[in-house]
């Protein structure tokens, strides 16, 4: 791209912001610091004017594509509309300008909000207690699995193995390892669900938990969930619910009623908070009552007629982050919850599922799911194997969709489907949008035979075309340098 970086716009002496001088004038750091602690190395920051900054980041923003830009059917990511009133609320000084260590009597409004959100999420998940602390889904998984570990240890029954289906998100096995468990994979059956026979075989006295997404990453509901829950419990293990796909079940069925013991929810998916180009998210965790003593601290408690923080939690797993959670994200999710109410949330699930099934039907015989026709939930996975035989891979179709003005679906996940394309329309997209997208997919399918070069060279007209990712990984350049290799100049500057 021919867009310069902020460093390349720098001119010595230019300033974006000017600070008022201290009331007794500027003082050199030598006044406060011994010589060996006074910085001599340059800071490596650009020198630019405020207008330079505004134009630079405005220009960069135009190279991006967000939900505000257009249809974003990225499977497993639930890219629904992010309501603006939520951002407005999170920006109020009464939420955004509170120091986390302020006296509790000065923050009763935000504590009330957090307590009500805990209660609402517990009701939606069918759980007894909720922590709002985890900063993301994976962070929630770690929190949940550590609680299971602590609960089993307290029961005098420490166990070593966590089971995950072969279709699981990569965070599930990584989380189990991070929590100190062995990981054992459970295969899928021909209908895309957990192979109950294989599960029975894998379960044993070493089984701490089974981690499950339901609907799973194929967008299919685990029909055998009650039997699975019984089997896991009978073996002495616990059932963990990865809430990545909770958008499909709101108000219809609750993880707690399916037999799950621990649940995390992704507020940046199901509860409409913006993804921010990769974060911040939020991954609250709910548990059934026997696991509540192990929740991370501090916990919200009602005391002296108001809300406060309780740090005296002898059985807690400890802390997983600083302070209380991604409060700005929690305010947004709370606003969403209050805007929807019970009927609204159920309608969200209904329309997310109707949209996915309608779009799948519109794609016709050209694009088929890998599993024999079953109603999907909020998303579906098509396998572009027929297209591959005709010369176009899933990646080519994805890149060609960019030319049609869409963000491409997730490709090559889940790993159990060859040439996977994972499509999640969400409930906030209109029928016209789905129709136009389906028409684009069908047009691309025709192009595979009519003009294959259009796919092979896609995308056209973006600021960059397909990138050389091998080069990026072989000779990593991770910082901007005037010299060719990272590390060397930077290290020298530091005075090694």
């Amino acid at each position, binding site marked *: 791209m021919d867009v310069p970086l902020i460093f390349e716009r720098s001119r010595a002496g230019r300033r974006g912001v000017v600070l008022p001088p201290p009331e007794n004038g500027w003082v050199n750091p030598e006044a406060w610091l011994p010589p060996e602690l006074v910085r001599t190395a340059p800071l490596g920051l650009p020198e630019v004017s405020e207008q330079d900054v505004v134009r630079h980041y405005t220009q960069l923003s135009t190279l991006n594509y967000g939900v505000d830009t257009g249809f974003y059917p990225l499977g497993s990511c639930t890219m629904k509309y992010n309501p603006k009133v939520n951002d407005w609320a999170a920006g109020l000084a009464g939420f955004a300008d509170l120091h986390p260590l302020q006296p509790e009597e000065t923050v009763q409004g935000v504590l009330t909000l957090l307590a009500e959100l805990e209660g609402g999420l517990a009701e939606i998940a069918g759980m007894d207690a909720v922590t709002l602390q985890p900063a993301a889904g994976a962070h929630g998984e770690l929190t949940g699995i550590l609680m299971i570990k602590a609960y089993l240890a307290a029961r005098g029954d420490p166990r070593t193995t966590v089971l995950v289906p072969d279709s699981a998100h990569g965070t599930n096995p990584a989380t189990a390892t991070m929590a100190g468990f062995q990981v054992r994979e459970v295969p899928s059956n021909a209908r895309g669900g957990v192979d109950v026979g294989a599960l029975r075989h894998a379960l044993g006295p070493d089984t701490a938990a089974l981690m499950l997404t339901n609907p799973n990453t194929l967008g299919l509901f685990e029909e055998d969930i009650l039997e699975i829950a019984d089997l896991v419990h009978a073996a002495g293990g616990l059932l963990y619910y990865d809430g990545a796909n909770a958008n499909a079940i709101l108000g219809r069925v609750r993880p707690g009623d399916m037999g799950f013991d621990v649940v995390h929810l992704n507020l940046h998916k199901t509860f409409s908070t913006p993804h921010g180009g990769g974060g911040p998210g939020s991954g609250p965790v709910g548990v059934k009552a026997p696991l509540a003593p192990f929740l991370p601290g501090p916990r919200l408690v009602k005391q002296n007629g108001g809300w406060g923080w309780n740090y005296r939690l002898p059985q807690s797993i400890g802390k997983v982050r600083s302070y209380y959670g991604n409060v700005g994200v929690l305010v947004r999710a709370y606003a969403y919850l209050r805007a929807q109410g019970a009927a609204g949330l159920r309608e969200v699930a209904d329309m997310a599922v109707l949209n996915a099934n309608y779009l799948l039907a519109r794609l016709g015989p050209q694009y088929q799911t890998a599993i024999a026709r079953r109603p999907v939930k909020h998303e579906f996975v098509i396998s572009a194997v027929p297209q591959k035989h005709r010369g176009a891979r899933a990646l080519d179709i994805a890149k060609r969709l960019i030319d049609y003005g869409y963000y491409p679906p997730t490709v*090559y996940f889940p790993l159990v489907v060859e040439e996977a394309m994972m499509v999640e329309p969400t409930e906030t997209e209109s029928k016209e949008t789905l129709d136009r997208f389906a028409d684009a997919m069908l047009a691309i399918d025709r192009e595979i035979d009519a003009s294959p070069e259009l796919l092979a060279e896609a995308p056209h007209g973006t600021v960059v075309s397909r990138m050389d*990712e*091998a080069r990026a*990984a*072989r000779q990593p350049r991770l910082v901007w340098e005037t010299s060719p290799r990272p590390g060397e100049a930077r290290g020298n500057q530091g005075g090694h």
Partner: protein
Amino acid sequence: MNIPEDLQYTREHEWLGKDGRIGITDYAQEALGDVVYVELPEVGRVLKPGDIFGVVESVKSASDLYSPTGGTVIRVNPALADHPELVNQDPYGSGWIMELAEPAGGDLMDAAAYRRQVGA
């Protein structure tokens, strides 16, 4: 697909030369795609057959490397640090990965058997 007759092979697609040199096969490099990094073992490390001695990374995969035989690591390929693509370009030659002293043991097959395994 290139499967030299004078080498021995493992089920996990490593090859072992008579001089104790070890690398991954043409089939393996093809399946991995562009190799971007090879994590090498420390010289002096003692390996048993089947031990994991390193990792080979492509842009979107990471695969453990299993020692085809036992022995002590006496050399690793210094060129791979800057040129991991050698594993793709010349898997049996300049893309070799490590060399073991006094290689012994291991469940190895000859070229014909390996050819059958990969269906070539």
